């Protein structure tokens, strides 16, 4: 197994972590619905408690996604985080306020009041749009220059420099980025609604979740399909495998899908699974397992999208300022030795997924209901 194998393997793991993260944003989607689905304090308590038993998975996946990206593609870490400063900081602020809100919201003496912490949860929920925006820049590009020789300039040794003074906020001015941001937000809301339907035994919450599911699905499809079609037909950033020269190629991402049939199949199965989970939930009132179909489907779809961003000789983080500064899995990865060490560690992932599944099942064995919220069990 050569260097290229490990680079592709690690791009796969990064894509998988990113895809799992998008699935787990059902927590954020659910938070954004706090006042739309929860009309009474008790209803909101049920919503918060069913999400509150899972929020740390999303949080941990985000942190692990960051750590794994750092370990495997450190040039992305230094270029994107150091350059798109405000975009990442805004996203991180959304997560900081989330982390305390579950624990603090219903505690006496929390100083800010329950409503403030609920608003924090809603900000974090809607803020997930930013994740979609920064991911979209992997297709649309960002304004930066990478020059490793800068390191020898002792007065200005910074290797990666950002060319736009807005430092990441300019990504919000790109329509295609916003489209993916909105698609991620509405997908998160769909997953949140499906999760409520599965885990809460309450007629009103079930009914309102189904009502919002219809609207959010419609909006998701509009934003996602527009982004998808636009991206598939747009010019993409191709890398010459021999010379490593980056160039713009028409419909690069469509070609990637067609040239990697397994990825295409994963993508199509993912889309079908998402739609099946939603439609069956909408059409069959007693069906509550839609979250699994839509969840697994979103993992497959996002995984495929991220794979076409980085595999098949594609620059996964293009530079619109200096196209040759674009990051590829080849020019931005860790050394072979580090990737090998990390690959051994990655063998733990199935074991981690196994115990997460066991613990998830143990906690979700029974649906949450009003009686449990009024009882003496620990709750938020």
């Amino acid at each position, binding site marked *: 197994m050569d260097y290229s194998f490990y680079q592709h393997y690690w791009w796969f793991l990064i894509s998988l972590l990113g895809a799992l993260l998008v699935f787990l944003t059902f927590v954020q989607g659910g938070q954004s619905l706090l006042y739309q689905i929860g009309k009474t304090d008790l209803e909101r308590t049920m919503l918060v408690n069913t999400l509150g038993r899972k929020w*740390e998975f999303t*949080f*941990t996946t*985000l*942190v*692990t*996604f*960051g*750590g*794994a990206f*750092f*370990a495997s593609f*450190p040039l992305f*870490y*230094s270029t994107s*985080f*150091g*350059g798109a*400063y405000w975009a990442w*900081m805004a996203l*991180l*602020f959304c997560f*900081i*306020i989330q*982390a*305390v809100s*579950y*624990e*603090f919201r219903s*505690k006496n*003496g929390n*100083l800010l009041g329950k409503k403030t912490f609920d608003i924090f949860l809603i900000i974090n929920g809607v803020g997930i749009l930013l994740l979609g925006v920064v991911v979209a820049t992997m297709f649309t590009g960002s304004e930066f220059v990478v020059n*490793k020789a800068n*390191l*020898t300039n*002792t*007065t*200005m040794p*910074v*290797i*990666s*420099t950002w060319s736009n003074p807005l*430092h990441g906020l300019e990504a919000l001015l790109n329509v295609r980025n916003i489209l993916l941001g909105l698609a991620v937000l509405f997908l998160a809301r769909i997953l949140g609604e499906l999760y409520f339907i599965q885990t809460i035994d309450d007629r009103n919450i079930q009914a309102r979740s189904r009502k919002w599911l219809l609207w959010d699905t419609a909006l998701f499809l509009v934003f996602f399909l527009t982004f998808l079609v636009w991206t598939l037909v747009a010019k993409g950033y191709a890398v010459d495998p021999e010379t490593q020269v980056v160039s713009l190629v028409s419909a690069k991402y469509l070609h990637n899908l067609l040239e990697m049939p397994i990825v295409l199949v994963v993508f199509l199965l993912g889309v079908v699974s998402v739609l099946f989970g939603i439609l069956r939930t909408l059409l069959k009132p007693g069906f509550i397992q839609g979250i699994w179909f839509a969840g697994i489907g979103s993992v497959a779809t996002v995984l495929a999208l991220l794979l076409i961003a980085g595999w098949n000789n594609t620059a996964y983080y293009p530079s619109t300022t200096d196209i040759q500064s674009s990051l590829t899995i080849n020019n931005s990865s*860790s*050394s072979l*030795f*580090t990737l090998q*060490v990390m690959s051994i*560690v990655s063998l*733990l992932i199935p074991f*981690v997924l196994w*115990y*997460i599944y066991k*613990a998830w099942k*143990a*906690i979700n064995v*029974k649906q949450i209901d009003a009686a449990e919220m009024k009882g*003496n*069990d*620990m709750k938020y």
Partner: protein
Amino acid sequence: METLDLSLVDWSRAQFALTAIYHWLFVPLTLGLGVIISVMETYYYKTGDEEWKRITQFWMKLFGINFAIGIATGIILEFEFGTNWSNYSWFVGDIFGAPLAIEGIMAFFMESTFIAVMFFGWNKVSKKFHLASTWLTIIGATLSALWILVANAWMQFPDGMHFNPDTVRNEMADFWAVLFSPVAMNKFFHTVTSSWIVGSAFVVAISAWFILKKRELDLAKKSIRIAAVFGLLGTLLAAFTGDGSAYQVAQKQPMKLAAMEGLYQGQNKAELVGFGILNPSKSSYDDGVQPFAVKIAVPGLLSLMANRDLNTFVPGVTDLIEGGYATKGKNGEVGVALSAEQKMAKGKLAVEGLKNYKLARLVSNDSLAKVSKAQLEENFAYFGYGYIKDKKELVPNVPLTFYTFHLMVIIGMYFILFFALAWFMNQKNTFNSQKWMLWLSLLGLPLAYICSECGWIVAEVGRQPWVIQDIMPANMAVSQISAGAVQTTFVLFAVLFTVLLFSELSIMIKQIKKGPEGLNH
């Protein structure tokens, strides 16, 4: 010519210091209290006594309040390596990123998976599964500490790597050398065992408060019984590993040791300052002003601590800047220490070697590339010195390092006596009747936090200006953003974290006042 704004470096350091200090207010309690509640639940599991369950759940509630804010303040630290220290992220990301990724895969998922079972699983899973979840939560938290401390230790003692001039970065060559470096092992055990002190001091203080209020006397007695023993064990181990850490500092970061001791002029049979007040008039290592206004010192002890030999020479700040003293290499070979100026000259040669190597590769001049690479490799040990403008930059803040070190040691020593006494009095049933002991227990709580924060200040201030010892100073590591942007996020973090801290304290106090009966409100 474009240059970096120096205030950007200072603000970036300030932001990292702010977020790290806040984060460290919560982590030691998680590490210490986590083990204590696990032991308590083990008692419940073994005896079936419902009182132990009630006690466990009470402390677990406080653990949860603290844990949440620990997570909130922790996420930013990982990403700040990228947002504020982007050059660092590339220059050593090949080595530094790995522990962070392993921390996520191995530790964070364990913690976040089982904490949900720990809090919400009391009536959903078996007693055995629940107990295992509690232990796995704290094992996950401790493993997380291991990996982040391995990463931090590597910055203080970069080992197991080589510099690759083609990729312009350091690359990992020996994973085991990174993981099991003596600095990492000492740092891990010292940090974790010192966190046990914080957890124990917390439990003893709150138990003492209950006793003062004549409430929950059984809970208090049982809690003190565990916390005092655990605290004593933690303090003794922290003293032992602290000595190991100090030895490593002496070997790998002699300037930090000199700052810790306020040692400006090197000494044979160097004295260890037990207590001292620095002379505030001293402004520079070479101003001729006496460093101490008052001091009580023991001759030879610093030499013993630094070199395991009472009679050896320990260099001071001046010696380290001016060089010329005799040194001993790894294999006992005798040499002469270089001056700061000589190191800076070598650093410049290393940077020049890299620059010429890159140019030579660009024009395919193999012979020049070979010569330049040899120049780089010969001088690479001093690479970071090439970015130092003034040798005085090499001296960290001596008063801050000195006072925090001594405060940490004095408080640490006090805790050995305190926990031994608390355990003894609790066993003899005299703890409750001695008001002075109860007040002393309350005082222990802020002291434990001060001691813990001091440890980090010593470690991080004492190593300045280095981000990676001798290889990368802070001014070489920052991102290219405006100082104003970092000032803005600094203020935002300061306000947000302060508000959250007060909120947490207020909740914690209310919850303690309610006691175990108010767990679900």
